[in-house]
């Protein structure tokens, strides 16, 4: 079954385009592909704003020093439509963030992979735990 699916996708790939080229909003210019990061942080607040939501985390360094970071995610509108809201990421939650650091060296980065410490991704599906946008 899986093999057939892959063949199908290869055949149709040219017009089944996933994310269109005109997809994102201001990321690439901000971040440096030569400065990847991955760390664990504690959420201090989440800004549910546009054009992109920002998650503020405190990161504890090896020296025990706490550094505040700002993580840029994506527009929250899809999440809001799936039932998530401003209380969905409470202060104090530990998250693991992977992305790339700001070009200007500030404690900012994009959050491309964001998980809880148990490995579950942040904001999967709908807040009600079901499939989210139902397919007809």
């Amino acid at each position, binding site marked *: 079954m899986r093999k057939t699916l892959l063949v199908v996708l290869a055949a149709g790939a040219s017009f089944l385009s996933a994310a269109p080229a005109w997809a994102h909003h201001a990321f690439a210019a901000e971040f440096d592909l030569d400065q990847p990061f991955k760390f664990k942080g504690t959420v201090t607040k989440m800004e*549910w704003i546009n054009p992109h939501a920002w998650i503020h985390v405190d990161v504890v360094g090896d020296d025990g020093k706490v550094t505040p970071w700002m993580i840029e995610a994506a527009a*929250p509108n899809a999440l*809001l439509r799936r039932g*998530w*809201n*401003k209380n969905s990421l409470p202060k104090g939650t530990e998250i693991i963030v992977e992305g790339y650091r700001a070009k200007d060296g500030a404690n900012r980065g994009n959050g491309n992979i964001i998980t809880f410490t148990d490995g579950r991704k942040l904001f999967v599906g709908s807040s009600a735990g079901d499939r989210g946008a139902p397919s007809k």
Partner: protein
Amino acid sequence: MPDGKPNFTGLWEALGTANWDIRDHSAQTGPFIQLGATGAMPAGQGIVEGGEIPYTPEAAAQQKENLKNRMKLDPEIKCYMPGIPRANYMPFPFQITQSQRDIAFAYEYATSNRVVNMGKFKEGAVDSWMGTSNGHWEGDTLVVDVSSLNGNSWFDRSGNFQTEDTHVVERFKLADADHMNYEATIDDKTIYTRPWKISTVIYRRKEKNAQLNEFKCVPFTEELIYGDLKKK
């Protein structure tokens, strides 16, 4: 309207100087002296019932700080959305489109807008600049509950500010076909000692060719906001 309700559809605009200061104010030099008289503040009667805003002492101090630093802090200067109630008495018109299910307010300033939900009450999922508006009729008065404001808006150019706990209940009533009485009750336990009220009149624009125009002011603010980061 066929359901017997008054029809607010049309183009409206406030007169007066509430956007400068919602309290009584004398004429005075404006913050940008280069603008001379065109940038000065006119005198005007306030729209606060009873005259004073019942600030807590800390909040009163905050307002004075805001006023002193308004050139940096007034969201209007940066073309940020004016929030509620300020959007209704900006010196720009707004268009109301009233259907039997929702009532849309399209404000010319910064292309701000909001839709008043006239159906079952819906809580705001997140805080926003224009808040979440739920409306219902009390006789011929349109009553709009505005919550989930993000607290970043001011009431005017004089530093009278909001917080994320600010809650506004508006009342719109037609005095006659071309005049709307507008009242708003504001409560916020974190900065006021009691709820308070503003009240003013909003006028229907009657010029033959009057229409909502576009004031997308972001391009007028970019030099101000990002100028320091421009390549020298």
